[in-house]
């Protein structure tokens, strides 16, 4: 190798990759790294070293009477080093403080989430079981909610007996009616679901060894044991028909569940899917609306849904289109919704809160989530032999597993089905031919014709929908037998509450231990009964302040803070 005489060129020309040079470099860098790490093991050590060196550079030359020019230079260098070190120390402390604050905030959030979840469960139980106490509540809370004095117990007990007998009567009536329907075979003909034939039940293809079952039974199981799920199907596959039939069963099994429908198609022909079963139907013609209006509509609907207390189910139709518009228009609120979905998938079951998404594609990207988050919602997939290309595309995704024989087996099931459709459900983890379901919309998209029922909208004597009267009776009874006097008789006094309400709250709080008041308040604030009676939080806050001032209750600072925190949410 031709090496130049210049030492610098020699250095540059040196073959750094030679074994000898590599050994030297490893030795040098290894030693240097070791020394640096020993001297400055942490960021703080480096900062303090710089500070001390700066002080030394600035002061020692002066003390040693060094030449003035050298002294000035060293003083300036020392000053600079000190400034940098001091600034870095400041930054270091900022980082430490921020990490500490974040840790504390996380801890508080976890604690708050735990408390909130417990309160929600307690509230739900309180609403569901009337006067019955939630056994998971602490004893002092049970004592606070239950009537305090024996005198006060007499009236509620009498009310309770009347309440129980009334509810029992209604339930017996319902049961008798159901038995009659079963005996006369009315359930078979009037039920929206025509049971699958033996043939179709036999050809179901298990994916992972579960025995195939009648899909009608599966729908009953889904309706009984609610879960958040995603219903995917090719256009015209019958997602709406499936969900609308399923909703009737859900209503039958869960009469108190609040059914909230958001559908972005706005097609009047399909309004029959939801009418008569859903408590709230929000509809919009998604294609005609601007993206901004569409997202505003979605956010408004979701706010209303979140505000509903107690058990609830959101049916979110046409999510493929709506999610796409939402993601591109307002990503922030979409992310919030995804977080809400994740929260519901983990905690919604205990709170009886669910979401059913209905869409056309199952790709996680199109749904705006990762595959992991998509899997939190249980899958239902429907394919039709009317559009084999779309069906094959859906079957090609990992949303649902395929039977051993692959796509052909699914399409064979479609051909065997009386309606030309096959369905995958998470309960049995298998594909089955879909039975003929009752078309509740009145418009047959396969034949593009209106059904007889819609052309002659005469009252149907054998309507499959469970009558909502038992629910109303129960709700009315609960309201009538709740803690306070009926609204018309209420004389509003101070705090916007009647004298009876004030004394009731005071009585219930009198037996309470300090520190537990916030739990009671949370339950009462969120109570549907309380809201129906028009008691707003600010009135309640004023009342609590007043009671604390008069010594009727002891309200700790932590209670006050919790209350404000809860109130601000």
């Amino acid at each position, binding site marked *: 190798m031709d090496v130049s005489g210049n030492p610098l060129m020699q250095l540059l020309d040196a073959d750094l990759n030679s074994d000898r040079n590599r050994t030297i470099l490893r030795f040098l860098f290894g030693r240097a790294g070791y020394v640096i790490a020993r001297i400055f093991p942490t960021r703080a050590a480096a900062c303090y070293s710089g500070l001390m060196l700066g002080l030394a550079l600035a002061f020692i030359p*002066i*003390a040693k009477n060094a030449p003035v020019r050298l*002294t*000035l230079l060293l*003083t300036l260098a020392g000053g600079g080093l*000190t400034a940098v070190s001091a600034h870095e*120390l400041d930054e*270091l402390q900022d980082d*430490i403080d921020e990490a500490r604050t974040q840790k504390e905030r996380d801890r508080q959030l976890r604690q708050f989430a735990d408390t909130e979840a417990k309160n929600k469960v307690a509230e739900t139980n309180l609403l569901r079981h009337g006067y019955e106490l939630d056994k998971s509540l602490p004893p002092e809370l049970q004592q606070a909610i239950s009537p305090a004095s024996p005198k006060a117990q007499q009236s509620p007990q009498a009310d309770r007996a009347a309440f129980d007998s009334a509810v029992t009567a209604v339930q017996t009536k319902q049961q008798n009616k159901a038995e009659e329907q079963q005996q006369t075979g009315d359930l078979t003909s009037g039920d929206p679901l025509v049971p699958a034939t033996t043939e179709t039940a036999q050809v179901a293809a298990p994916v992972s060894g579960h025995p195939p079952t009648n899909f009608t039974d599966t729908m009953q199981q889904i309706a009984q044991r609610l879960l958040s799920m995603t219903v995917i199907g090719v256009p015209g596959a019958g997602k709406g028909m499936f969900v609308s039939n399923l909703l009737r069963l859900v209503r039958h099994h869960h009469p108190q569940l609040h059914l909230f429908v958001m559908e972005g198609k706005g097609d009047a022909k399909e309004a029959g899917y939801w009418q008569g079963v859903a408590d709230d139907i929000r509809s919009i013609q998604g294609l005609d609306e601007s993206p901004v209006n569409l997202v505003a509509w979605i956010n408004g609907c979701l706010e209303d849904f979140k505000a509903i207390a107690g058990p609830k189910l959101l049916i979110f139709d046409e999510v493929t289109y709506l999610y796409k518009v939402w993601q591109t228009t307002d990503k922030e609120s979409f992310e919030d919704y995804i977080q809400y979905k994740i929260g519901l998938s983990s905690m919604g079951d205990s709170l009886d809160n669910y979401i059913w998404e209905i869409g056309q594609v199952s790709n996680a990207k199109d749904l705006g989530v990762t595959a992991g988050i998509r899997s939190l919602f249980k899958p239902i997939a429907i394919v039709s032999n009317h559009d084999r290309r779309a069906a094959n595309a859906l079957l090609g995704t990992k949303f649902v597993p395929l039977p051993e024989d692959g796509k052909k087996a699914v399409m064979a099931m479609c051909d065997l089905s009386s309606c030309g459709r096959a369905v995958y459900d998470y309960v049995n983890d298998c594909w089955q031919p879909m039975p003929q379901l009752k078309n509740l919309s009145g418009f047959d998209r396969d034949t593009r014709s209106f059904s007889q029922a819609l052309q002659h909208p005469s009252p149907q004597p054998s309507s499959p929908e469970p009558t909502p009267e038992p629910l109303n009776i129960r709700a009315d009874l609960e309201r009538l037998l709740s803690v306070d006097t009926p609204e018309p008789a209420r004389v509003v006094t101070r705090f916007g509450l009647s004298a009876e309400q004030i004394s009731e709250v005071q009585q219930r709080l009198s037996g309470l231990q300090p520190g537990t008041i916030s739990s009671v308040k949370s339950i009462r604030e969120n109570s549907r009964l309380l809201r129906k009676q028009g008691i707003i939080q600010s009135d309640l806050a004023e009342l609590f302040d007043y009671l604390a001032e008069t010594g009727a209750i002891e309200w700790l600072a932590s209670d006050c803070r919790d209350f404000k925190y809860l109130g601000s949410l």
Partner: protein
Amino acid sequence: MSHRLASKFGYYSLSGFAGSALVQLAVIWPQTWIAVVALGAISLLYFAFLIICIQGVLRGARWAGVLNFNLLGVDAIESTAIVLLFVVGGLWTCLEIL
């Protein structure tokens, strides 16, 4: 004890270095003494103003009521410390070099 205290100490030292550097510069370039004298005078005026304000506040003088800063608070102590260290740095350098 947090790193914030050491950081403050570093920043205060800087004012001492600044006073010291000014004196050293004046030794090399004598015209700088004008600036040194001017800064010394301003420092004296600052201390005089501070003492008058403190006296006024302690005696409850009416004019002291318009002072909207806390004389005994951290701000006053910090600014006093910075001026003091600047003066001390300069004086010490003067004694050592001259």
